Protein backbone atom coordinates (compact mmCIF):
# COMPACT_ATOMS: atom_id res chain seq x y z
CA UNK A 1 0.00 0.00 0.00
CA UNK A 2 1.40 3.36 -0.99
CA UNK A 3 0.09 4.95 2.19
CA UNK A 4 2.23 2.69 4.37
CA UNK A 5 5.23 3.55 2.30
CA UNK A 6 4.83 7.22 3.02
CA UNK A 7 4.21 6.59 6.69
CA UNK A 8 7.51 4.77 6.90
CA UNK A 9 9.26 7.82 5.49
CA UNK A 10 7.94 9.84 8.38
CA UNK A 11 8.77 7.23 10.97
CA UNK A 12 12.34 6.71 9.83
CA UNK A 13 13.32 10.31 10.23
CA UNK A 14 14.77 9.53 13.66
CA UNK A 15 17.62 7.63 12.09
CA UNK A 16 18.81 10.08 9.48
CA UNK A 17 22.33 9.29 8.25
CA UNK A 18 24.71 12.21 8.18
CA UNK A 19 27.78 10.28 7.01
CA UNK A 20 28.88 10.86 3.42
CA UNK A 21 27.22 14.25 3.58
CA UNK A 22 28.71 16.99 1.44
CA UNK A 23 29.66 20.24 3.13
CA UNK A 24 30.74 23.29 1.19
CA UNK A 25 33.14 25.62 2.97
CA UNK A 26 33.89 29.22 1.99
CA UNK A 27 36.76 31.04 3.66
CA UNK A 28 39.49 33.22 2.22
CA UNK A 29 41.94 31.87 4.84
CA UNK A 30 43.50 28.64 3.53
CA UNK A 31 44.42 27.62 7.08
CA UNK A 32 40.78 27.72 8.17
CA UNK A 33 39.75 25.69 5.13
CA UNK A 34 42.46 23.15 5.90
CA UNK A 35 41.38 22.90 9.54
CA UNK A 36 37.71 22.47 8.68
CA UNK A 37 38.59 19.83 6.11
CA UNK A 38 40.48 17.83 8.74
CA UNK A 39 37.70 18.05 11.27
CA UNK A 40 35.06 17.05 8.73
CA UNK A 41 37.16 14.13 7.55
CA UNK A 42 37.12 12.80 11.10
CA UNK A 43 33.35 12.95 10.96
CA UNK A 44 33.46 11.13 7.58
CA UNK A 45 31.90 14.13 5.87
CA UNK A 46 32.91 15.15 2.34
CA UNK A 47 34.52 18.57 2.05
CA UNK A 48 34.55 21.09 -0.80
CA UNK A 49 36.49 24.27 -0.08
CA UNK A 50 36.31 27.65 -1.86
CA UNK A 51 38.47 30.73 -1.26
CA UNK A 52 35.76 33.24 -2.17
CA UNK A 53 31.97 33.69 -2.23
CA UNK A 54 32.13 34.28 -6.00
CA UNK A 55 33.78 30.92 -6.77
CA UNK A 56 31.47 29.13 -4.35
CA UNK A 57 28.35 30.67 -5.92
CA UNK A 58 29.50 29.60 -9.36
CA UNK A 59 29.84 26.03 -8.09
CA UNK A 60 26.50 26.16 -6.28
CA UNK A 61 24.59 26.93 -9.47
CA UNK A 62 25.00 23.29 -10.36
CA UNK A 63 25.39 21.58 -7.00
CA UNK A 64 23.36 21.09 -3.84
CA UNK A 65 25.47 20.39 -0.77
CA UNK A 66 23.92 19.21 2.48
CA UNK A 67 25.32 22.16 4.38
CA UNK A 68 27.26 25.37 3.75
CA UNK A 69 29.86 26.83 6.12
CA UNK A 70 30.99 30.37 5.41
CA UNK A 71 33.10 33.14 6.83
CA UNK A 72 31.38 36.52 7.14
CA UNK A 73 34.23 38.91 6.45
CA UNK A 74 35.84 38.15 3.11
CA UNK A 75 37.43 40.27 0.41
CA UNK A 76 35.05 40.83 -2.51
CA UNK A 77 31.56 39.51 -1.76
CA UNK A 78 31.08 39.06 1.99
CA UNK A 79 29.36 36.09 3.61
CA UNK A 80 26.06 37.88 4.16
CA UNK A 81 25.70 38.90 0.51
CA UNK A 82 26.74 35.36 -0.42
CA UNK A 83 24.01 33.91 1.76
CA UNK A 84 21.24 36.16 0.48
CA UNK A 85 22.24 35.38 -3.12
CA UNK A 86 22.29 31.63 -2.67
CA UNK A 87 18.91 31.71 -0.94
CA UNK A 88 17.48 33.01 -4.21
CA UNK A 89 18.47 29.79 -5.97
CA UNK A 90 15.50 27.45 -5.68
CA UNK A 91 17.51 24.33 -4.96
CA UNK A 92 19.32 26.09 -2.10
CA UNK A 93 16.35 27.71 -0.40
CA UNK A 94 16.52 25.40 2.58
CA UNK A 95 20.10 24.17 2.73
CA UNK A 96 21.49 25.04 6.17
CA UNK A 97 24.06 27.85 6.17
CA UNK A 98 26.36 28.25 9.20
CA UNK A 99 28.63 31.28 9.62
CA UNK A 100 32.02 31.46 11.26
CA UNK A 101 32.24 34.56 13.31
CA UNK A 102 34.54 36.25 15.71
CA UNK A 103 33.11 37.43 19.02
CA UNK A 104 33.63 41.00 17.85
CA UNK A 105 31.22 41.02 14.88
CA UNK A 106 28.11 40.03 16.77
CA UNK A 107 26.12 42.83 15.15
CA UNK A 108 26.83 41.25 11.76
CA UNK A 109 24.95 38.21 13.06
CA UNK A 110 21.53 39.79 12.96
CA UNK A 111 22.15 40.80 9.36
CA UNK A 112 23.30 37.26 8.67
CA UNK A 113 20.05 35.82 10.04
CA UNK A 114 18.09 38.30 7.92
CA UNK A 115 19.99 37.04 4.90
CA UNK A 116 18.86 33.51 5.70
CA UNK A 117 21.59 32.06 7.92
CA UNK A 118 20.69 29.00 9.96
CA UNK A 119 23.29 29.23 12.73
CA UNK A 120 26.78 30.49 13.63
CA UNK A 121 29.94 29.14 15.19
CA UNK A 122 32.32 31.39 17.09
CA UNK A 123 35.98 31.22 16.12
CA UNK A 124 38.35 29.72 17.11
CA UNK A 125 36.79 26.52 15.76
CA UNK A 126 36.69 23.48 18.00
CA UNK A 127 36.22 20.01 16.62
CA UNK A 128 33.43 18.84 18.92
CA UNK A 129 31.34 21.96 18.45
CA UNK A 130 31.79 22.10 14.68
CA UNK A 131 30.97 18.44 14.16
CA UNK A 132 27.97 18.42 16.43
CA UNK A 133 26.46 21.53 14.82
CA UNK A 134 27.11 20.20 11.33
CA UNK A 135 25.53 16.85 12.16
CA UNK A 136 22.58 18.47 13.84
CA UNK A 137 21.81 20.80 10.92
CA UNK A 138 22.25 18.13 8.27
CA UNK A 139 19.95 15.81 10.18
CA UNK A 140 17.41 18.55 10.52
CA UNK A 141 17.69 19.44 6.84
CA UNK A 142 17.29 15.85 5.70
CA UNK A 143 14.34 15.33 7.98
CA UNK A 144 12.62 18.36 6.49
CA UNK A 145 13.39 17.17 2.98
CA UNK A 146 11.96 13.74 3.79
CA UNK A 147 8.85 15.31 5.29
CA UNK A 148 8.43 17.48 2.24
CA UNK A 149 8.62 14.50 -0.06
CA UNK A 150 6.14 12.56 1.99
CA UNK A 151 3.75 15.53 2.05
CA UNK A 152 3.96 15.70 -1.72
CA UNK A 153 3.34 12.00 -1.95
CA UNK A 154 0.38 12.19 0.41
CA UNK A 155 -1.08 15.08 -1.56
CA UNK A 156 -0.80 13.10 -4.76
CA UNK A 157 -2.39 10.10 -3.13
CA UNK A 158 -5.14 12.25 -1.76
CA UNK A 159 -5.79 13.70 -5.18
CA UNK A 160 -6.00 10.33 -6.82
CA UNK A 161 -8.26 9.15 -4.03
CA UNK A 162 -10.56 12.09 -4.72
CA UNK A 163 -10.53 11.29 -8.43
CA UNK A 164 -11.28 7.65 -7.74
CA UNK A 165 -14.07 8.62 -5.39
CA UNK A 166 -15.62 10.79 -8.09
CA UNK A 167 -15.36 8.22 -10.85
CA UNK A 168 -16.55 5.34 -8.69
CA UNK A 169 -19.54 7.18 -7.29
CA UNK A 170 -20.47 8.56 -10.68
CA UNK A 171 -20.49 5.08 -12.19
CA UNK A 172 -22.39 3.62 -9.26
CA UNK A 173 -25.03 6.28 -9.26
CA UNK A 174 -26.98 5.55 -12.45
CA UNK A 175 -27.44 1.82 -11.91
CA UNK A 176 -28.57 2.58 -8.37
CA UNK A 177 -31.13 5.08 -9.60
CA UNK A 178 -32.47 2.40 -11.92
CA UNK A 179 -32.51 -0.26 -9.22
CA UNK A 180 -34.39 2.04 -6.90
CA UNK A 181 -36.79 3.17 -9.63
CA UNK A 182 -37.49 -0.34 -10.85
CA UNK A 183 -38.02 -1.72 -7.36
CA UNK A 184 -40.31 1.20 -6.52
CA UNK A 185 -42.40 0.23 -9.54
CA UNK A 186 -42.51 -3.33 -8.26
CA UNK A 187 -43.51 -2.11 -4.83
CA UNK A 188 -46.26 0.08 -6.29
CA UNK A 189 -47.77 -3.07 -7.89
CA UNK A 190 -48.55 -1.06 -11.03
CA UNK A 191 -47.39 -3.98 -13.12
CA UNK A 192 -48.99 -6.75 -11.09
CA UNK A 193 -49.79 -7.74 -7.49
CA UNK A 194 -47.22 -9.05 -5.03
CA UNK A 195 -47.74 -11.58 -2.29
CA UNK A 196 -46.87 -10.81 1.31
CA UNK A 197 -43.37 -12.28 1.11
CA UNK A 198 -42.52 -10.59 -2.19
CA UNK A 199 -43.68 -7.27 -0.80
CA UNK A 200 -41.28 -7.69 2.10
CA UNK A 201 -38.40 -8.51 -0.26
CA UNK A 202 -39.08 -5.56 -2.54
CA UNK A 203 -39.29 -3.24 0.43
CA UNK A 204 -35.81 -4.34 1.44
CA UNK A 205 -34.45 -3.65 -2.05
CA UNK A 206 -36.04 -0.19 -2.11
CA UNK A 207 -34.65 0.72 1.29
CA UNK A 208 -31.17 -0.62 0.61
CA UNK A 209 -30.93 1.11 -2.75
CA UNK A 210 -32.17 4.34 -1.22
CA UNK A 211 -29.52 4.36 1.47
CA UNK A 212 -26.82 3.35 -1.02
CA UNK A 213 -27.89 6.08 -3.36
CA UNK A 214 -27.73 8.69 -0.65
CA UNK A 215 -24.26 7.47 0.29
CA UNK A 216 -23.13 7.61 -3.34
CA UNK A 217 -24.54 11.11 -3.73
CA UNK A 218 -22.74 12.25 -0.61
CA UNK A 219 -19.52 10.72 -1.93
CA UNK A 220 -19.99 12.51 -5.23
CA UNK A 221 -20.41 15.75 -3.33
CA UNK A 222 -17.28 15.09 -1.30
CA UNK A 223 -15.25 14.48 -4.42
CA UNK A 224 -16.65 17.62 -6.02
CA UNK A 225 -15.74 19.71 -2.97
CA UNK A 226 -12.27 18.26 -2.69
CA UNK A 227 -11.44 18.66 -6.35
CA UNK A 228 -12.82 22.20 -6.28
CA UNK A 229 -15.48 21.45 -8.87
CA UNK A 230 -18.51 22.30 -6.80
CA UNK A 231 -20.30 25.18 -8.47
CA UNK A 232 -23.31 26.81 -6.94
CA UNK A 233 -26.15 28.17 -9.01
CA UNK A 234 -27.65 30.95 -7.02
CA UNK A 235 -31.15 32.29 -7.49
CA UNK A 236 -33.46 34.36 -5.35
CA UNK A 237 -35.97 32.16 -3.57
CA UNK A 238 -37.84 31.40 -0.40
CA UNK A 239 -36.08 29.29 2.19
CA UNK A 240 -39.43 28.50 3.75
CA UNK A 241 -40.62 26.85 0.52
CA UNK A 242 -37.60 24.55 0.60
CA UNK A 243 -38.24 23.77 4.25
CA UNK A 244 -41.86 22.91 3.41
CA UNK A 245 -40.62 20.50 0.76
CA UNK A 246 -38.22 18.93 3.25
CA UNK A 247 -40.96 18.53 5.85
CA UNK A 248 -43.26 16.89 3.30
CA UNK A 249 -40.49 14.59 2.14
CA UNK A 250 -39.75 13.36 5.66
CA UNK A 251 -43.23 13.35 7.17
CA UNK A 252 -43.78 9.65 6.44
CA UNK A 253 -40.45 8.71 7.98
CA UNK A 254 -41.18 10.80 11.02
CA UNK A 255 -44.65 9.44 11.61
CA UNK A 256 -43.37 5.88 11.19
CA UNK A 257 -41.24 6.57 14.27
CA UNK A 258 -44.06 8.52 15.98
CA UNK A 259 -41.99 11.67 15.77
CA UNK A 260 -43.81 14.94 15.31
CA UNK A 261 -42.26 17.10 12.61
CA UNK A 262 -43.16 20.76 13.09
CA UNK A 263 -42.28 23.80 11.02
CA UNK A 264 -42.18 26.94 13.09
CA UNK A 265 -41.75 30.00 10.89
CA UNK A 266 -41.01 33.17 12.81
CA UNK A 267 -40.32 35.30 9.77
CA UNK A 268 -42.54 36.81 7.13
CA UNK A 269 -39.79 37.01 4.58
CA UNK A 270 -37.44 34.09 4.00
CA UNK A 271 -36.20 35.20 0.58
CA UNK A 272 -32.50 34.84 -0.11
CA UNK A 273 -29.89 33.96 -2.70
CA UNK A 274 -28.95 30.31 -2.76
CA UNK A 275 -28.63 27.15 -4.78
CA UNK A 276 -31.98 25.39 -4.53
CA UNK A 277 -30.66 21.88 -4.95
CA UNK A 278 -27.75 22.25 -2.53
CA UNK A 279 -29.65 24.02 0.23
CA UNK A 280 -32.39 21.39 -0.13
CA UNK A 281 -29.70 18.81 0.54
CA UNK A 282 -28.74 20.63 3.72
CA UNK A 283 -32.34 20.81 4.92
CA UNK A 284 -32.87 17.21 3.93
CA UNK A 285 -29.78 16.08 5.77
CA UNK A 286 -30.53 17.98 8.96
CA UNK A 287 -34.14 16.81 9.14
CA UNK A 288 -33.27 13.19 8.37
CA UNK A 289 -30.49 13.27 10.98
CA UNK A 290 -32.84 14.68 13.57
CA UNK A 291 -35.38 11.93 12.86
CA UNK A 292 -32.68 9.28 12.77
CA UNK A 293 -31.31 10.10 16.21
CA UNK A 294 -34.59 10.88 17.96
CA UNK A 295 -36.50 8.38 20.06
CA UNK A 296 -40.20 7.84 19.43
CA UNK A 297 -42.82 10.20 20.83
CA UNK A 298 -40.63 13.25 20.54
CA UNK A 299 -40.77 16.37 18.41
CA UNK A 300 -38.44 17.65 15.73
CA UNK A 301 -38.91 21.35 15.22
CA UNK A 302 -37.66 23.29 12.21
CA UNK A 303 -37.48 26.95 13.10
CA UNK A 304 -37.08 29.75 10.57
CA UNK A 305 -35.93 33.15 11.77
CA UNK A 306 -34.48 36.16 10.05
CA UNK A 307 -33.16 39.66 10.39
CA UNK A 308 -32.64 42.12 7.60
CA UNK A 309 -29.46 40.44 6.31
CA UNK A 310 -29.44 36.87 7.53
CA UNK A 311 -31.77 33.87 7.42
CA UNK A 312 -31.57 31.32 10.22
CA UNK A 313 -32.66 27.73 9.91
CA UNK A 314 -32.71 25.78 13.15
CA UNK A 315 -33.41 22.09 13.49
CA UNK A 316 -34.13 21.09 17.06
CA UNK A 317 -34.63 17.58 18.33
CA UNK A 318 -35.34 15.96 21.70
CA UNK A 319 -32.78 13.21 21.29
CA UNK A 320 -29.89 12.38 23.61
CA UNK A 321 -27.81 15.41 22.62
CA UNK A 322 -24.24 15.26 21.43
CA UNK A 323 -21.64 14.04 23.94
CA UNK A 324 -19.61 17.08 24.95
CA UNK A 325 -16.28 15.65 23.83
CA UNK A 326 -17.61 14.69 20.40
CA UNK A 327 -18.56 18.05 18.94
CA UNK A 328 -15.23 18.03 17.10
CA UNK A 329 -16.29 14.96 15.13
CA UNK A 330 -19.60 16.35 13.91
CA UNK A 331 -18.62 18.15 10.74
CA UNK A 332 -15.66 15.97 9.92
CA UNK A 333 -15.54 13.82 6.84
CA UNK A 334 -16.29 10.13 7.48
CA UNK A 335 -16.64 10.53 11.19
CA UNK A 336 -19.52 9.68 13.46
CA UNK A 337 -20.38 10.42 17.04
CA UNK A 338 -21.08 7.57 19.44
CA UNK A 339 -24.83 8.28 19.21
CA UNK A 340 -26.70 5.55 17.39
CA UNK A 341 -29.71 5.87 15.08
CA UNK A 342 -32.75 4.89 17.12
CA UNK A 343 -34.38 2.54 14.61
CA UNK A 344 -31.43 0.85 12.95
CA UNK A 345 -31.14 3.48 10.20
CA UNK A 346 -27.82 3.77 8.44
CA UNK A 347 -25.49 6.67 8.87
CA UNK A 348 -22.44 7.20 6.69
CA UNK A 349 -20.69 10.01 8.51
CA UNK A 350 -20.54 12.30 5.51
CA UNK A 351 -23.85 14.14 5.66
CA UNK A 352 -22.85 16.92 8.03
CA UNK A 353 -19.51 17.39 6.30
CA UNK A 354 -21.42 17.90 3.06
CA UNK A 355 -23.82 20.32 4.78
CA UNK A 356 -20.95 22.36 6.13
CA UNK A 357 -19.24 22.51 2.74
CA UNK A 358 -22.44 23.64 1.05
CA UNK A 359 -23.23 26.27 3.65
CA UNK A 360 -19.67 27.59 3.63
CA UNK A 361 -19.74 27.72 -0.17
CA UNK A 362 -22.73 30.04 0.28
CA UNK A 363 -20.72 32.20 2.66
CA UNK A 364 -22.86 31.06 5.57
CA UNK A 365 -22.20 29.08 8.73
CA UNK A 366 -23.48 25.95 10.42
CA UNK A 367 -23.16 25.07 14.08
CA UNK A 368 -24.47 22.63 16.63
CA UNK A 369 -25.25 22.95 20.32
CA UNK A 370 -27.03 20.95 22.96
CA UNK A 371 -30.22 22.58 24.12
CA UNK A 372 -30.60 23.39 27.77
CA UNK A 373 -33.76 21.35 28.07
CA UNK A 374 -33.04 18.32 25.92
CA UNK A 375 -31.66 17.36 22.55
CA UNK A 376 -29.58 19.13 19.96
CA UNK A 377 -30.01 22.27 17.91
CA UNK A 378 -28.35 22.72 14.52
CA UNK A 379 -28.28 26.29 13.27
CA UNK A 380 -27.63 27.31 9.69
CA UNK A 381 -27.08 31.01 9.02
CA UNK A 382 -27.31 32.15 5.40
CA UNK A 383 -26.78 35.66 4.15
CA UNK A 384 -29.71 36.86 2.10
CA UNK A 385 -27.31 38.33 -0.40
CA UNK A 386 -24.19 36.41 -1.34
CA UNK A 387 -21.18 38.61 -1.59
CA UNK A 388 -18.45 37.26 -3.79
CA UNK A 389 -15.88 35.31 -1.92
Amino acid at each position, binding site marked *: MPVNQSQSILENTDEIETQRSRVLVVDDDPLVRKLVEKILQRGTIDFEGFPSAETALEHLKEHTPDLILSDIMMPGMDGIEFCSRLRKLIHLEEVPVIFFTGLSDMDALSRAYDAGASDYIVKPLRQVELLSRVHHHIEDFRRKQAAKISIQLLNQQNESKTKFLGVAS*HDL*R*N*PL*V*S*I*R*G*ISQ*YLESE*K*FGPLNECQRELVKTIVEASESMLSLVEDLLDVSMFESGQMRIQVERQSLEALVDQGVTLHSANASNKRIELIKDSRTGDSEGDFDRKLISRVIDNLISNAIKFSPSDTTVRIVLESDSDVLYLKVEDEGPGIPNDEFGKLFKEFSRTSNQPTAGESSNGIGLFVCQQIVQRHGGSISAENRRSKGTRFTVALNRIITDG
Partner: protein
Amino acid sequence: MDKELTALIADDEAHMRTFMKLLLLDLGIKKVYLMQNGMDAIDAFREYQPDLVLLDINMSVMNGLDALEGIKKINPDCKVIMMTAVSTRDSVEECSRKGATYYILKTQTPEEIRTLLKQVIDSIGVSA
Protein backbone atom coordinates in the same frame (compact mmCIF):
# COMPACT_ATOMS: atom_id res chain seq x y z
CA MET B 1 -55.82 9.43 -26.31
CA ASP B 2 -57.06 8.43 -29.78
CA LYS B 3 -54.11 6.33 -30.71
CA GLU B 4 -52.04 3.74 -28.87
CA LEU B 5 -48.57 5.23 -28.68
CA THR B 6 -45.39 3.24 -29.12
CA ALA B 7 -41.80 4.07 -28.24
CA LEU B 8 -38.28 2.90 -28.94
CA ILE B 9 -35.43 3.02 -26.43
CA ALA B 10 -31.79 2.54 -27.38
CA ASP B 11 -29.32 2.33 -24.53
CA ASP B 12 -26.38 -0.01 -24.00
CA GLU B 13 -27.13 -0.31 -20.29
CA ALA B 14 -29.83 -2.86 -19.50
CA HIS B 15 -30.93 -1.17 -16.27
CA MET B 16 -31.57 2.11 -18.07
CA ARG B 17 -33.58 0.35 -20.78
CA THR B 18 -35.71 -1.39 -18.16
CA PHE B 19 -36.24 1.64 -16.00
CA MET B 20 -37.08 3.97 -18.87
CA LYS B 21 -39.44 1.33 -20.27
CA LEU B 22 -41.31 1.17 -16.95
CA LEU B 23 -41.58 4.96 -16.87
CA LEU B 24 -42.99 5.00 -20.40
CA LEU B 25 -45.44 2.15 -19.75
CA ASP B 26 -46.53 3.94 -16.60
CA LEU B 27 -47.16 7.06 -18.66
CA GLY B 28 -49.50 5.18 -20.98
CA ILE B 29 -47.24 4.07 -23.82
CA LYS B 30 -48.61 0.75 -25.03
CA LYS B 31 -45.55 -0.82 -26.57
CA VAL B 32 -41.85 -0.13 -26.00
CA TYR B 33 -39.12 -1.56 -28.24
CA LEU B 34 -35.66 -1.98 -26.72
CA MET B 35 -32.36 -1.76 -28.61
CA GLN B 36 -28.73 -1.73 -27.52
CA ASN B 37 -27.07 0.44 -30.13
CA GLY B 38 -27.73 3.12 -32.71
CA MET B 39 -27.56 0.80 -35.71
CA ASP B 40 -30.26 -1.52 -34.36
CA ALA B 41 -32.26 1.54 -33.32
CA ILE B 42 -32.42 2.82 -36.91
CA ASP B 43 -33.46 -0.62 -38.19
CA ALA B 44 -36.13 -0.93 -35.52
CA PHE B 45 -37.34 2.59 -36.21
CA ARG B 46 -37.78 1.78 -39.89
CA GLU B 47 -39.69 -1.37 -39.04
CA TYR B 48 -41.95 -0.18 -36.20
CA GLN B 49 -42.27 3.59 -36.83
CA PRO B 50 -42.64 4.40 -33.09
CA ASP B 51 -44.09 7.74 -32.00
CA LEU B 52 -41.27 8.48 -29.59
CA VAL B 53 -37.58 7.57 -29.54
CA LEU B 54 -35.19 7.71 -26.59
CA LEU B 55 -31.52 7.53 -27.55
CA ASP B 56 -28.54 7.25 -25.28
CA ILE B 57 -25.68 9.33 -26.66
CA ASN B 58 -22.83 7.03 -25.70
CA MET B 59 -23.36 3.63 -27.26
CA SER B 60 -21.04 1.23 -29.02
CA VAL B 61 -21.41 0.19 -32.69
CA MET B 62 -23.27 3.42 -33.46
CA ASN B 63 -23.71 6.28 -31.04
CA GLY B 64 -26.92 8.15 -30.37
CA LEU B 65 -26.04 11.23 -32.40
CA ASP B 66 -25.52 9.22 -35.59
CA ALA B 67 -28.68 7.26 -34.89
CA LEU B 68 -30.52 10.56 -34.43
CA GLU B 69 -29.42 11.65 -37.89
CA GLY B 70 -30.45 8.31 -39.42
CA ILE B 71 -33.86 8.40 -37.77
CA LYS B 72 -34.49 12.01 -38.78
CA LYS B 73 -33.76 11.03 -42.38
CA ILE B 74 -36.48 8.40 -42.23
CA ASN B 75 -38.99 10.64 -40.45
CA PRO B 76 -38.05 14.29 -39.87
CA ASP B 77 -41.10 14.83 -37.62
CA CYS B 78 -40.30 12.06 -35.17
CA LYS B 79 -39.91 13.08 -31.55
CA VAL B 80 -36.49 12.04 -30.33
CA ILE B 81 -35.25 12.45 -26.78
CA MET B 82 -31.52 12.20 -26.19
CA MET B 83 -30.17 10.76 -22.93
CA THR B 84 -26.73 11.17 -21.44
CA ALA B 85 -24.86 10.77 -18.19
CA VAL B 86 -22.58 13.70 -18.89
CA SER B 87 -23.65 16.80 -20.74
CA THR B 88 -21.55 19.52 -22.26
CA ARG B 89 -22.68 22.64 -24.04
CA ASP B 90 -21.35 21.19 -27.30
CA SER B 91 -23.25 17.93 -26.99
CA VAL B 92 -26.50 19.77 -26.18
CA GLU B 93 -26.04 22.04 -29.18
CA GLU B 94 -25.20 19.17 -31.48
CA CYS B 95 -28.34 17.31 -30.41
CA SER B 96 -30.61 20.25 -31.07
CA ARG B 97 -28.90 20.96 -34.40
CA LYS B 98 -29.53 17.40 -35.47
CA GLY B 99 -33.18 17.70 -34.60
CA ALA B 100 -33.58 16.21 -31.11
CA THR B 101 -36.76 17.29 -29.35
CA TYR B 102 -35.53 17.03 -25.76
CA TYR B 103 -32.48 16.22 -23.74
CA ILE B 104 -32.48 14.10 -20.60
CA LEU B 105 -29.64 14.08 -18.15
CA LYS B 106 -29.37 10.76 -16.38
CA THR B 107 -28.43 12.65 -13.23
CA GLN B 108 -31.86 14.29 -13.13
CA THR B 109 -34.24 12.82 -10.58
CA PRO B 110 -36.71 10.19 -11.82
CA GLU B 111 -39.50 12.66 -11.02
CA GLU B 112 -37.94 15.29 -13.29
CA ILE B 113 -37.43 12.76 -16.06
CA ARG B 114 -40.98 11.53 -15.66
CA THR B 115 -42.39 15.07 -15.87
CA LEU B 116 -40.42 15.74 -19.02
CA LEU B 117 -41.48 12.49 -20.67
CA LYS B 118 -45.09 13.24 -19.80
CA GLN B 119 -44.90 16.63 -21.50
CA VAL B 120 -43.52 15.10 -24.67
CA ILE B 121 -46.08 12.29 -24.69
CA ASP B 122 -48.90 14.77 -24.11
CA SER B 123 -47.68 16.85 -27.05
CA ILE B 124 -47.73 13.76 -29.28
CA GLY B 125 -51.24 12.98 -28.10
CA VAL B 126 -52.36 16.47 -29.12
CA SER B 127 -50.73 16.47 -32.54
CA ALA B 128 -51.76 12.89 -33.37
